[in-house]
């Protein structure tokens, strides 16, 4: 593309900008003086100014600069919009149009000095300072590309003497370095620098600057490592290194300074061999509260009280000196004051928690005994009960850790997924300070990772699909944790396409997981993705694995005594909710009677309990039966048979059926005599006190002091059903 072609684009654009500005001013005249309208006018003029400068139309640029400055004041609200002001601006727009025409046709630009003066007079900034911008503007046009220090003097806020001083100083220093260059003894000059932590923010890379200094001809003499602390007090963000460089005389100090223009005060420079290495800036320096630097100087410059440049100048100077340092001090958020802590061996802690568990049981036993003797409502008992609960909670809290340690790994997982799937996902996290048991946290990582991978791989659509669906190109993953009634709820939500239930059902039928004629609810279809061996990915990806993921997730969550549920809305996303106990030492259980035994069924397995009608029970062989639960047949397992209890009922109608969900064997109905209670039980490991017993997950001590076994529903059901082979049935018959 040639320069002429680009200029042609520019002039076409000028027409559009003029039309937009004119429409905006017309709207203003009609009374629509809102921000959007004023901004449209400003943008039109601003855009012309940018191009005018680029193509060297000095007169056009000077005029647009004055016009733009006024519009900027109007936009900022420092100049009120009046009828006469709108008329003035409309006149200015006409002249601007003439300027554009003159520039395009290379003719003499229109005479605009009177109008410029009018525009300038209308500015708030010029309450006490009239003609300066008019003369400053053309200067800006011609000098902005020359040097940065010259730029400073042409800024809109009425240059003060300090800028000139800077400029002279630079020139002077250049001269000095030039003189040194003539002396053969001292052909090089030196400087030192230190990059502070903030120099690495915003994509800056001090290494590139060092490299650029080397390209200029600089040589690194010393890298100062004397400030590097011992490893245990090393702060990653702090700039511990300092460098000293020497330059040949022909390299000017201004050229070196310019390299560091972008980072400002975030790199401290010391010119001259006599200056010491700048100090390390440690992040712990208490943040100095400095008012927002930009408005300060703007107010000083444009406010009606700033009558003389003398006042404005120090404000600008402050901005220069304090602004960057204030920012860099704010940059690293002050680290939270570390609470005092001690390290405890985990087994000591577990012993304490174990003892507290005993205390809870003992307290419950005592309460039961005393209530039998008529001492139930004594104040002391209530007090002890409250204290016991407090102690238990405190002890549990010692083992508790914030879930943030698991959540903090998620951004990395997402980054890896982004590079392997090309889907970029924004993460929203809440409740990362929610605490739960260390063991639960440790075992939560794997299922959580699986669910996140699944959400990105299957849930969130590729960017083009998302845009087509009217969503933002970037997907959002929401991760939250909260306490709810003694349990913790962890949600993993995506704003993807939701579960494709037709496909899930088709796949499940194809895999033989459900009968082709089965009528399932939405929820039941959703749950199919947890079935072993289920995978809906058309092609197996290396992200979500090979269809072993989701059933393992559910198993992991179950092992933790938790539950997982799905909410999915086609088109707007899927949310997985994990409900977990706060600790593995205590679990919710249903206390049941079976003959002469009391057993505990973990509540995590329980779906419902029911008393069947006679016609819902179907016999199967001599002593087996099935129960019809809303059209689905579920095997009935008499719990007494499994645990060898004596005197229990064997007729489903006489007892209560507890429908349980198992991992490997689907649903089953456990036949028990009665349900006594539903309560939190302190889990005692049978392995450590006796030995591992198949079908038993552990033991607990009930309020009356009796030991009750906690049923391992999964292994008990699968063992019981496995024995019910045709041969075994025939034998029993």
């Amino acid at each position, binding site marked *: 593309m040639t320069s002429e072609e680009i200029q042609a684009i520019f002039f076409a654009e000028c027409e559009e900008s003029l039309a937009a500005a004119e429409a905006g001013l017309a709207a203003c005249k009609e009374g629509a003086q809102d921000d959007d309208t004023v901004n449209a006018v400003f943008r039109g003029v601003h855009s012309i100014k*940018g191009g005018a400068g*680029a193509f060297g139309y000095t007169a056009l640029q000077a005029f647009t600069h004055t016009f733009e400055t006024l519009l900027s004041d109007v936009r900022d609200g420092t100049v009120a919009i009046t009828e006469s002001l709108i008329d003035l601006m409309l006149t200015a727009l006409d002249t601007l149009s003439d300027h554009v025409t003159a520039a395009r046709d290379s003719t003499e630009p229109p005479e605009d000095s009177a109008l410029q003066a009018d525009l300038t007079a209308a500015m708030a900034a010029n309450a006490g300072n009239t003609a300066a911008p008019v003369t400053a503007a053309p200067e800006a046009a011609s000098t902005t590309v020359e040097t940065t220090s010259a730029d400073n003097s042409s800024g809109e806020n009425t240059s003060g003497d300090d800028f000139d001083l800077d400029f002279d100083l630079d020139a002077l220093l250049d001269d000095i370095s030039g003189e040194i260059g003539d002396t053969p003894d001292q052909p090089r000059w030196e400087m030192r620098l230190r990059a502070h932590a903030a120099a690495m*923010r915003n994509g*800056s890379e001090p290494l*590139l600057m060092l490299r650029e200094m080397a390209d200029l001809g600089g040589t690194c003499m010393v890298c100062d490592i004397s400030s590097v602390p011992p490893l245990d007090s090393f702060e990653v963000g702090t700039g511990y290194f300092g460098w000293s460089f020497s330059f040949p005389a022909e390299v000017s100090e201004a050229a070196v300074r310019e390299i560091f*223009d972008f980072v400002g005060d975030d790199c401290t420079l010391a010119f001259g061999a006599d200056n010491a290495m700048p100090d390390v800036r440690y992040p712990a320096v208490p943040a100095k509260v400095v008012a927002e630097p930009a408005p300060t100087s703007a107010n000083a410059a444009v406010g009606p009280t700033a009558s003389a440049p003398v006042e404005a100048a120090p404000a600008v100077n402050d901005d220069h000196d304090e602004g960057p340092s204030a*920012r860099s001090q704010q940059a690293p958020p002050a680290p939270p004051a570390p609470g005092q802590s001690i390290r405890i061996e985990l087994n000591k802690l577990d012993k304490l928690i174990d003892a507290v568990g005993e205390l809870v049981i003992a307290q419950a036993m005592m309460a039961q005994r005393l209530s039998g003797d008529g001492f139930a409502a004594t104040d002391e008992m209530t007090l002890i009960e409250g204290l016991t609960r407090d102690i238990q909670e405190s002890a549990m809290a010692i083992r508790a850790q914030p879930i943030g340690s698991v959540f903090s790994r998620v951004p990395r997982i997402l980054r890896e997924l982004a590079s392997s799937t090309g889907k970029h996902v924004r993460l929203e996290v809440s409740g990362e300070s929610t605490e739960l048991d260390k063991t639960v946290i440790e075992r939560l990582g794997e299922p959580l990772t699986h669910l996140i991978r699944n959400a990105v791989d299957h849930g969130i659509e590729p960017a083009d699909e998302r845009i087509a669906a009217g969503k933002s*190109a970037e997907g959002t993953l929401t991760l939250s944790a909260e306490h709810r009634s003694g349990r913790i709820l962890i949600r993993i939500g995506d704003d993807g396409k939701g579960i494709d239930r037709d496909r899930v059902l088709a796949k499940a039928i194809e895999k033989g997981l459900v009968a082709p004629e089965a009528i399932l609810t939405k929820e039941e279809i959703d749950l199919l993705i947890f079935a072993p061996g289920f995978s809906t990915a058309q092609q197996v990806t290396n992200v979500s694995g090979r269809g072993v993921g989701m059933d393992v997730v559910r198993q992991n969550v179950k092992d933790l005594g938790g539950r997982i549920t799905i909410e999915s809305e086609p088109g707007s996303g899927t949310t997985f909710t994990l409900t977990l106990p706060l600790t593995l030492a205590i679990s919710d259980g249903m206390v049941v009677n079976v003959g002469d035994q009391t057993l505990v069924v973990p509540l995590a397995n329980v779906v419902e309990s029911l008393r069947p009608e006679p016609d819902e029970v179907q016999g199967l062989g001599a002593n087996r039966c099935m129960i019809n639960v809303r059209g689905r047949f579920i095997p009935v397992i008499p719990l007494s048979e499994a645990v060898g209890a004596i005197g229990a009922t064997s007729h489903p109608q006489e007892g209560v059926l507890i429908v349980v969900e198992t991992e490997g064997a689907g649903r089953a109905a456990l036949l028990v005599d009665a349900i006594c209670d539903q309560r939190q039980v302190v889990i005692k490991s049978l392995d450590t006190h006796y030995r591992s017993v198949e079908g038993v997950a552990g033991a607990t001590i009930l309020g009356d002091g009796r030991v009750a076994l906690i049923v391992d529903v999964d292994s008990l059901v699968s063992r019981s059903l496995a024995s019910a082979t045709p041969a075994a049935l025939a034998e029993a018959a």
Partner: protein
Amino acid sequence: MTTTTRILTVDDSPSMRALLNHALAGQGFDVSQAEDGMAALDWLAMNEVDVVITDINMPRLDGFGLIERLREGSRHRDRPILVLTTESSEEKKARARAAGATGWIVKPFDPEKLVAAVRRVSH
């Protein structure tokens, strides 16, 4: 430099985009264009880039808004972003840096300075 530096230029003015393209493509950079902050976000969602050069005043989403959105996510937190500014006052520089810009290019720009600025921030 072993690979081509990819640059996204964001400006609502077609002539400014053409000028940037002219100055950068001629120096061997791989230049893409977006007409405002929203278009830039959409483009960035599907493409990789090494350096972003953005105008400040744009409709829909302006330059500072774009930088803010990019710095929010982890993907562009350390991405070099240069802003195009018509002023080179310390105040404007301070504002640009506070907004999260890596550096600035003063409009009207000198093609050599533009290229130098890009090289200063790109690996």
